[in-house]
Each structure stands twice: as structure tokens, then as C-alpha cells.
């Protein structure tokens, strides 16, 4: 059965710290891995990683896909209180396109 596991489940840091969130997956016929940020309701798209695009960066956020280890990390540098949110990792397989399989999420709290 396809599965996504995120760690840690929750994290508390102070402004300015750097954090690394982890996502590991087991999926048949991997197609893509996506990261979303969920603050109140709507998950907001951050990155999509595929076999042809294993590293993405946007401002203070960056993500890497390790296809050998079946995992991905999301890095946030110089954290701000506005980064406080739930970070969701999801994978999609080629055999079931359109169905995202999500992990439990990592709740990040950034204290001033």
C-alpha cells in the first residue's frame, strides 16, 4: 500500500533558526512529490519534485528529492513567525494520476 511518513510531527523553533522537515514515501511507480503549506484551511502549493527536477528553491525555502532513499527534505532558513503552519508532503504515482497521498503533516511553530 502506498504510504507517506513525515517527521517530526511537530517542531518549535525561534525566529532566525533553520529547520529541516522530512518526508519518506513508499509508492508504486513514483511520479512526483509535492510540498504544501497549510495555515488555516487551504493547503498552499510550495514545490513539485520529479525525476527531472529533484531540487527546487524559492526564497528561504528549498527542497530536495532523494529517489534512492525514497525521501525528500524541506528546508526553511532564517525562519519567521509567518512560517508557522502545517507542512504537508504528498506523492503521486503514474498508476493513479490525480490521487495525492499525503503524510500526516509537520506542525511548525516559530516563536518571536
Amino acid at each position, binding site marked *: 500500500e502506498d504510504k507517506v511518513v513525515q517527521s517530526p510531527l511537530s517542531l518549535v523553533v525561534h525566529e532566525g533558526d533553520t529547520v529541516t522537515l522530512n518526508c519518506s514515501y513508499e509508492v508504486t511507480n513514483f511520479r512526483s512529490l509535492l510540498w504544501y503549506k497549510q495555515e488555516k484551511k487551504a493547503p498552499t502549493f510550495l514545490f513539485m519534485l520529479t525525476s527531472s527536477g529533484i531540487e527546487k528553491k524559492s526564497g528561504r525555502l528549498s527542497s530536495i528529492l532523494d529517489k534512492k532513499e525514497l525521501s525528500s527534505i524541506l528546508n526553511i532558513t532564517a525562519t519567521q513567525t509567518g512560517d508557522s503552519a502545517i507542512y504537508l508532503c504528498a506523492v503521486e504515482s503514474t498508476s493513479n494520476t*490525480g490521487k495525492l497521498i*499525503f503524510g500526516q503533516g509537520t506542525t511548525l511553530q516559530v516563536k518571536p
Partner: protein
Amino acid sequence: DAGVTQSPTHLIKTRGQHVTLRCSPISGHKSVSWYQQVLGQGPQFIFQYYEKEERGRGNFPDRFSARQFPNYSSELNVNALLLGDSALYLCASSLARGRSTDTQYFGPGTRLTVL
């Protein structure tokens, strides 16, 4: 450009009742997917529709059904509500360009409470 919109925002129902949730995709997007997110967990896939046809179904009972209209908007129906159906129901739309990878963009969700 408007994002994915969902209605209503909140809904309170009692056990045994029926509910209809609505979703309008981003303009130009032809695919709509529905997810259920229980508190403290990641979203779980319920359905995907593309060009008015069901393209995928998750592990949900037959009490859950959906449809997509010619304008690509969608409805999710849940019959015989149970307490365990209380959750945030998320709709996501995508271009659905066929074989190429496709990003799903989520709406704000409908918070359903079953008493």
C-alpha cells in the same frame, strides 16, 4: 485570477442527514479532486473528476458520491451522515493535461460538523 472556491464555508448537520458541498475550479482547469481532512491528519483522497467523468476513487463508502458539471464545477454528496464524517472537505483543481505532471491547487475547504 480567482482561485478555487468552495461553498459553504461551514456546515452543521445531524446524524442521518444528507449534505452537498460545492466547488468551482480555477478558470481553465478541467479536473477537480475531493479530499477529506480529519483534525490532526493529512488530507485523504475521495474522488477525482475530469471532463465530467470519474477518474479515481479513494477508500470511502458508497454514501459518498460526486459529479462534475459541463462548466467543470463539482458537487460532493454525502448521505446518511455519521459523526465520523466531521472533517474539513477540500477541493483541488488542476489543468489535467494528460501525461505531463500536473499541480493540484486547493480551495479553502468546507468545515462539516456532524452532531
